[in-house]
C-alpha cells in the first residue's frame, strides 16, 4: 500500500511527501498501430518534452495524463469552467479545448511553473493570505488567469467591461471581475480572490 500524502504544518507551510511524478510516459504501445499519432514537442515550464500522442489528446490530458503535471485541473473538459487555464506563449487558454498536437514548439506555463510551496509566486502568496480558495480545485486555473489578466490589462487588451478603448486601461474592480468570469469557483471564493488580485494590483501600482 502506498503512502498517503502527509501534510506538515511547519510555519504555516504544508509540504507533501507525495512521490515525484515519474518521467513522462510514452503513448500506450498497443494502440500505436491503428490510431493516428503525432509527434509534438512541448516546452512546459521551461522544460522541453518530446511526446508521441494519440491525435485526440487534448493539451489538458497531455499535461495531466502524460506529463503528470496534475496541477492543471479538469472540471468540465468543455470550456465551461476555466479549471484547465494555462498560458500558451503568454496567452491564457482553456487547455481542454485545444489538442496537444496543435501546440508543437509552443511555450506552456502551468501552475507548477509559477511557484512551489517553498517559493510561492506573489499571486500564489496573495491567494494564500486572502484564503482565496476552499477546496482548491479551481485554484490553479484562477491563479493562472489572474496572472494573465494583469498582463492583458497592461497590454491594453479590451474586455466587455472596458469603457473607453482609447484611454489607458485601469485594473478596476469591474475589469478584474469581468476578466476572471471564465473561472468558476463553486466554493464561492470570489470575494477573496478579488481581494488577492487587488492586493497584487495595488502593490504593483
Amino acid at each position, binding site marked *: 500500500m*502506498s503512502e498517503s500524502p502527509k501534510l506538515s504544518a511547519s510555519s504555516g507551510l504544508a509540504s507533501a511527501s507525495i512521490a515525484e511524478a515519474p518521467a513522462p510516459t510514452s503513448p*500506450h504501445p498497443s494502440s500505436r498501430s491503428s490510431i493516428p499519432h503525432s509527434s509534438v514537442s512541448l516546452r512546459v515550464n521551461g522544460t522541453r518534452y518530446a511526446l508521441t500522442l494519440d491525435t485526440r489528446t487534448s493539451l489538458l490530458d497531455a499535461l495531466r495524463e502524460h506529463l503528470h503535471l496534475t496541477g492543471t485541473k479538469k472540471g468540465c473538459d468543455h470550456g465551461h469552467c476555466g479549471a484547465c487555464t494555462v498560458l500558451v506563449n503568454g496567452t491564457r487558454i482553456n487547455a481542454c479545448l485545444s489538442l496537444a498536437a496543435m501546440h508543437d514548439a509552443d511555450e506552456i506555463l502551468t501552475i507548477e511553473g509559477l511557484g512551489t510551496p517553498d517559493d510561492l509566486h506573489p499571486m500564489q502568496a496573495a491567494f494564500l493570505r486572502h484564503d482565496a480558495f476552499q477546496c482548491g480545485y479551481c485554484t490553479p486555473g484562477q491563479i493562472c488567469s489572474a496572472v494573465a489578466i494583469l498582463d492583458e490589462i497592461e497590454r491594453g487588451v479590451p474586455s466587455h467591461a472596458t469603457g473607453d478603448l482609447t484611454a489607458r486601461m485601469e485594473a478596476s474592480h469591474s475589469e478584474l471581475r469581468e476578466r476572471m468570469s471564465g473561472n468558476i469557483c463553486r466554493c464561492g471564493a470570489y470575494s477573496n480572490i478579488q481581494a488577492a488580485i487587488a492586493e497584487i494590483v495595488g502593490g504593483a501600482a
Partner: protein
Amino acid sequence: MQFTTPAGRNPIDQLKVVGKPVTRVDGPLKVTGNARYAYERHEVVPNQAYGWILGATIAKGRIIQIDTAAAEAEPGVLKVLTTLDRDPVPPGFRATVHLFGGAEIQHYHQAIALVVAESFEQARAAAHLIAVEYETAHGRFDLAAEASGAKPIADRDSPDSPIVDRVGDFDAAFAEAPVTLDESYATPDQSHAMMEPHATIAAWADGTLTVWTSAQMIGWHREDLAHMLGLDKEDIRVESPFIGGGFGSKLLLRVDALLAALGSKATGRPVKVALQRPLIINNGTRRAGTMQRIRLGATRDGRLTAISHHSLNGNLPGGFAEAAVAPTRLLYGTPNRDLALKLAILDLPEGNDMRAPGEASGLMALEIAMDEMAEKLGLDPVEFRIRNDTQVDPAKPERPFSERHLIECLRTGAERFGWSRRNPSPGAVRDGKWLVGLGMAAAYRGNLVTPSKARIRLERDGRLTVETDMTDIGTGSYTILAQTAAEMMGCPLGSVKLALGDSAYPASSGSGGQWGANNSTAGLYAACVKLREAVAARLGFNAEDAAFADGMVTSGNRSVPLAEAAKDGPLTGEDGIEYGDLDKRYAQGTFAAHFVEVGVDSFTREVRVRRMLAVCDAGRVLNPITARSQVIGGMTMGVGAALMEGLAVDRRFGYFVNNDLGGYEVPVHADIPHQEVIFLDYPDDKSSPMKAKGIGELGLCGVGAAVANAVYNATGIRVRDYPVTVDKHLAEAPQRA
C-alpha cells in the same frame, strides 16, 4: 470521551492557536497545484487503465440488449462491462437508486456500461460504439402534474417529528388572526456543481480493494462499497485526502468508485474513472425542487400566532422528501403550527442531500413570506423578526436553546448595513437607470453532533502526528485540526503533521451537514486528553494539574520539555467524542441575519447584487479565515439560488437538459460583490468541548430570500418562483412601469 454535561473551562479556552486567523496549512499545496485529487494519483499504483462510463439515454424502461462488439474491437480496449452482466447492486446508504446492474432503468443517464481501455481517448471513443436497444416505459416527470397523487411523508432527519407536525390549533388561530398571509412558492431542482467531478482510481491486491476517490464520508463510502461488492469492509481501503468540493454530492458512494472497482477486477489492472461533466447532473443526485405553501397569522402588533408550512417535492419511488419545513420548527416562536411534507413520485434523477438540505429550500420560501407579512403589518422586516424570536423550542417550551443570539445578529446587521436608510416603499429608490433595493432574511440551521475519533502521536522529536479519516472538502479541516492539536499539546502549529481522509485511520464524523468542524475537532480533543495523560504519566506528573504550553509540560515548579516524554519511543493518544443527550435537552442551532443590496436595471430588469453582509451566531469560531470562507461560499451559492440556478426538466424525455456548467448557471466573479461577514462570539458549552458549532451551511440559509426581498424592495414586483430571472420579472413589469 463521553460528552454528557456542558463543557467547563478546558485548554481550548486559552485560545492561543484556536480561534486565531491562521492561513490554511494545506494552502501552499493547493495554490501550487501540488494537492493531488483522486484522478491525479499517478504515483499510488502503476499501470493504470482508463474507464469511461456510458449513461442510459432513456429515463425509464428496460434494456433489451447491448451490443459491445464494435467497442471491444477498438484498439486499446481491454474490457467492456455492461449492466446486463450482473444483478443490480443494492442501493447504498441513504440512497434510493441502484447504481449499476440489471436491465431496469430508473433514471436518465443511469450507468449502463463501462469501457476500460489503455487510454482515455480510446475508452471514450469506444463507448460511442456501444449500441443499446431499449424498451421505454411511461415516466412521470412533471411535479405539478403529479401533485394530486402525492402522499404525506416523514422527515427522515427528524424522526421524532410526527408526519403532520401540529402544535396548538393552527386552523382556529389562523381563522382568528387579524392579519393573515397565504402564499405559494416554488424552488427549482438544483445541482451541487462541485468543481471536481466524481473520480476514483481502484486497484485490487490479494482480494483486497483500495480506492483513491473523492469522498466526504470515508466510512459511508467504505461500507457501501463492501455492501455492494460483497466484501468485508476490513478488506477495503478508502483514501480521499483532497476533495474538490462536495456540497453533498460526495456524501454517498457514487458509480465512479463502484465501476472503477468492477473494471479493475475484470481487467486485473488498476482502473481510473471520472464521471464526465455532462453525466454528473443526470447520473448523480439533485436538490429536489419544491412547491411550498405558507400561511401566517399575526396580531396587528406583529406577533405570529399561527404558522403553516407545507412542502411538496418529487422523488423516485422509495425516495426521500426535501425537508423544507425543517427551519420552520425552530426559527420563530408561534403557539400554533402545522407543518407537513408530501412526496410525489417522479422518475427523474434521485433527489438527495445538497448543502443545507431542507433549510436552504425552506428558508427561500419562509423568509419571503416573512417579508410579505412585515409589509402587510406595516412593520420593519427586521423588527418583525425580532418580535417573533424564541429562546425555547416552540413545540417543547421546556427545551431551551443552548445559545441563541438571532436578535443580536439582526440588530448588528441592520446597524452595520445601514438598514435604516432602506425605503420601505418598493420601487422608490433610483440610482441612474438602476432601481435600488435592500432586503434581508433570518437564517437557521441545526447543529448536529455525531461521534468522531482521532489518534495523535507524540514522536521522538517532539512533533505531533494526527490521524483521522476526517476529510477536508475545502472547509479547512486540516487547519482547524492542526490548531486543535497545537492548542491542546502546547505546541507550535508547525510541529503538527496531519494525515486525513484514509480509512486506515480512526473513524471521524466526516464532512456533511455542517457537522465536520465541531465534531472532528472534538474527537481530536478527546484523543489529545488521552495523550496528555500518557505524557503526564511518563513524566511523573499528575495529568489533572499539568499545563501544556510553549513546548513544555509544567506542574507546580517543575517544567519539562514535551519531547522528553517521547524520548524512549512515541506516545499515542487515541479516543473519540460521543454525545449524551445535551442535544435533546437543548435545542442546538446556528443563526444568521443576511442583508443584501441589489440594483435592478429599470429597462432590462437585470439584477446586480451590490453589497452583502452576513452576521452569524455559530458558537466559537475555530478559525475566522476559514469560517469566513465557508460563509461567503454559502452567500455566493445563495445568490445562485436566488437569481440563476435551476435544472430545466425535459418533461417529454425525463431528464435535466442543462446538464453541464455551460447550461446550469452558477455565479461567476462578475455576479458577486465584496462580501462582509461578522461573527458573534458565543461559545456553546452544550455543543462539545470545543464549544463550536457548524457554519458551512448557515452561510447559504436565508440568502436566496434576502436577495429576492431586495429585488422586491427595488422594483415592487414579487417573484415567488425561483430563480428570480428577467423573464419572470418582465412578465409583471410592463403594467408597473
